[in-house]
């Protein structure tokens, strides 16, 4: 039916003007309100800064916590927030830092990369935080990187990643490739066989990781018999499993992400492929993920990390106990959770050593700093701002925990650009 009465609005002159005035008032009011509130905030912050230089007692220092609390990544990142808050609580309980209480400002990155950039900017400019702990995906880190560099902020990024990066304003407390993937490949070549099938989700980490693995296999006498990428959120692996069955590799090197793992392992088991037939080595499956996949389909497969909940150190016993008491007995700890927790403590140690919250001084103090983390002793490498970490390979047990099969014995020096490996030369050129 024709509804040509839209033109009616044109004749409502007074009404329209009234409406627009209202709109305008509202918008100006809203914008003005924002401006006023941010001005007030800034004034507050300035006061704080003044007093911080005066070093008043009972004052607070703000730190930012920026993880995805909603959206697809919330699955993983919520636990990191919990671990970081716990670490902050511990520091506050033992008297705070330089006489100040730490006040966490928790922001939601919403699994959306511009939101990460926006919130990082807000934390640095508006809240003037001394440090930000945050991120999970490489994309979120890449989004925050220019922001922290331009504002000379400090970001502590707690997740293993693909390397090839070393920003002066970021500390990387998760593993880089030579602390996770490279030793795992060497171990597999020695213990499980020479033929590798590379399977990953179609995004940056698996593609970069597989490029490194291919270079390493070529140099160390292994062979790639298949390389497959599936779109994020892919849930049918029947064809890929057929391909695996056809080429019969000794090892499947799995860099799948998130939910795809569930589908892959369930369907792998159904296809009658057991850990005896082929070793699946995963780099993104930790205790937390095992709970969502179900230990029944994972038991016997391997993963490589720097920390397991079962890692036997006194610090870890205390850490696991405290975490479970605080957040529930059914919760588990894992590598990124531990790295996030350690990040806060490392920052605190660096601040104490520097005697200041100033970013440049904290960075200077952090170089060479050692700390007894739940995973064992870690050391900040001053040059790359990564950590020296112990590498551990574990087998998944029926109870969802890892049994450690191998560890590197001592912390491995971080080498994000793989410069110390002869075959790594061509990778970062």
């Amino acid at each position, binding site marked *: 039916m024709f509804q040509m009465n839209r033109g009616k609005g*044109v004749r409502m002159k007074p009404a329209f003007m009234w409406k627009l005035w209202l709109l305008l008032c509202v918008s100006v009011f809203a*914008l003005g309100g924002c*401006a006023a509130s941010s001005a007030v905030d800034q004034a507050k912050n300035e006061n704080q800064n003044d007093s911080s230089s005066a070093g008043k007692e009972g004052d607070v220092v703000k730190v930012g916590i920026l993880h995805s609390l909603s959206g697809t990544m919330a699955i993983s990142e919520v636990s990191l927030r919990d671990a970081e808050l716990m670490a902050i609580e511990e520091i506050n309980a033992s008297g705070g830092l330089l006489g100040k209480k730490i006040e966490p400002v928790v922001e939601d990155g919403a699994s959306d990369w*511009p939101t990460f*950039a926006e919130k990082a900017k807000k934390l640095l400019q508006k809240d003037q935080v001394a440090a930000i702990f945050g991120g999970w995906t490489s994309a979120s880190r890449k989004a925050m990187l220019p922001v922290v560099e331009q504002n000379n902020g400090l970001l502590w990024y707690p997740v293993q990643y693909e390397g090839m990066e070393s920003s002066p304003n970021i500390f990387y407390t998760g593993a880089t490739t030579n602390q996770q993937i490279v030793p795992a490949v060497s171990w597999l070549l020695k213990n499980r066989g020479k033929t590798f099938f590379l399977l990953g989700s179609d995004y940056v980490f698996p593609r970069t990781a597989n490029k490194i693995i291919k270079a390493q296999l070529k140099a160390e006498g292994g062979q790639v018999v298949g390389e497959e990428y599936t779109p994020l959120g892919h849930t049918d692996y029947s064809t890929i499993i057929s391909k695996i069955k056809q080429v019969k590799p000794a090892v499947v090197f799995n860099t799948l992400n998130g939910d795809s793992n569930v589908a892959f392992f369930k369907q792998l088991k159904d296809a009658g492929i057991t850990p005896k037939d082929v070793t699946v080595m995963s780099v993104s499956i930790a205790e937390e993920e095992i709970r969502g996949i179900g230990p029944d389909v994972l038991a016997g497969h391997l993963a490589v990390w720097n920390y397991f909940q079962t890692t036997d150190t006194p610090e870890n016993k205390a850490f696991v106990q405290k975490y479970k008491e605080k957040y529930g007995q059914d919760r588990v700890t894992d590598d990124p959770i531990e790295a996030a927790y350690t990040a806060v403590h490392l920052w605190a140690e660096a601040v104490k050593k520097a005697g200041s919250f100033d970013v440049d001084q904290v960075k200077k103090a952090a170089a060479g700093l050692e700390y007894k983390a739940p995973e064992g002793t870690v050391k900040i490498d001053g040059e790359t701002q990564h950590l020296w970490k112990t590498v551990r390979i574990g087998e998944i047990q029926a109870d969802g925990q890892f049994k450690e099969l191998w560890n590197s014995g001592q912390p491995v020096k971080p080498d994000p650009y793989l410069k110390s490996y002869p075959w790594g030369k061509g990778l970062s050129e």
Partner: protein
Amino acid sequence: MVNKRWGYWLFFAALFLAPFYLTEFRLSLLGKFLCFAIVAVGISLIWGYTGILSLGHGVYFGLGAYCMAMYLKLEASRGHLPDFMEWSGVRELPWFWKPFAHPMVAIAAAIALPTLLAALLSYLTFKNRIQGVYFSLLSQAVVVVFVTLFIGKQEWTGGTNGLTNFSTVFGFSLSSPLTQIVLYWLTAAVLALIFVMTRRLTTGQLGKVLIAIRDAENRVRFLGFNPTVYKVFVYSLSAAFAGVAGALFVLQVGLISPEMMGIIPSIEMVLWAAVGGRHSLMGAIIGAIVMNTAKSFLSENYPDLWLLLLGALFVVVVLFVPKGLAGIYESLAAVRIKEKRGHEREARVDVS
């Protein structure tokens, strides 16, 4: 008419003066929202006026953004290969990247590529008389195709990380506050221009035909018009708006990744227009600004509640206020007129 114009003038004057009363952080948010407002104007044009619901505007926005980002990335790489290409094993700049070293090419492509893609898609679809929800779902399929491709071709597009870490535009540092203010003004100016242009279009003859197509396409056809031409034209135009918005977005936010052109952002774009009032261009602009402000504020303070609220908002808007904010104001205004007329009548009675 004169009064309405005054309102618009004031609104845009308030936008242009924003750098003087907003902090740097708030201004950068507002600048981002104005980019979204440009998209919303385009959505309002095709949905509110022509009745085409596109769930694929994220792609046009993304294409525009990527074109601009390619130029920025090349400028930031200073003659070297962009960093992500190096570690993806690319040794030489792909041919289709090369023209983007020139900013003018990038800007032209940011408008031309989305327009061409939209024209192609809409020409084929509308010529075959695929309408309504089928078109919406097809446009969604296009989103799936593009997002999968952009993620999969990491060596050319940066994969899920997208393109980021830019330094300069035309030699000016992107991080300097002055550049940001200039970019903000540019965005506000483009928004104003697009608003005026679209208003001209919709209040004229063309607008009437579009509304007629929305309400009864076949009758329009029987009257001798060719609706396909009109629909392709407005759809491509709105895609061009989205492309421009994407380019401006990248300049201000400094980041574009495939997620931002995905299904969810595309639907959110429609929501802005729906909340503001799909039939009103000004409503769509206000809708984009209000919704994003709310998102920024609520997801900051109540991340758990935010999605519930957003979902409820969809339902409430569709069920109870299908004309959005603009509709609310209109009906309020209508009530006022009635009251006023009532008073006048009473007054007249008194006199007589």
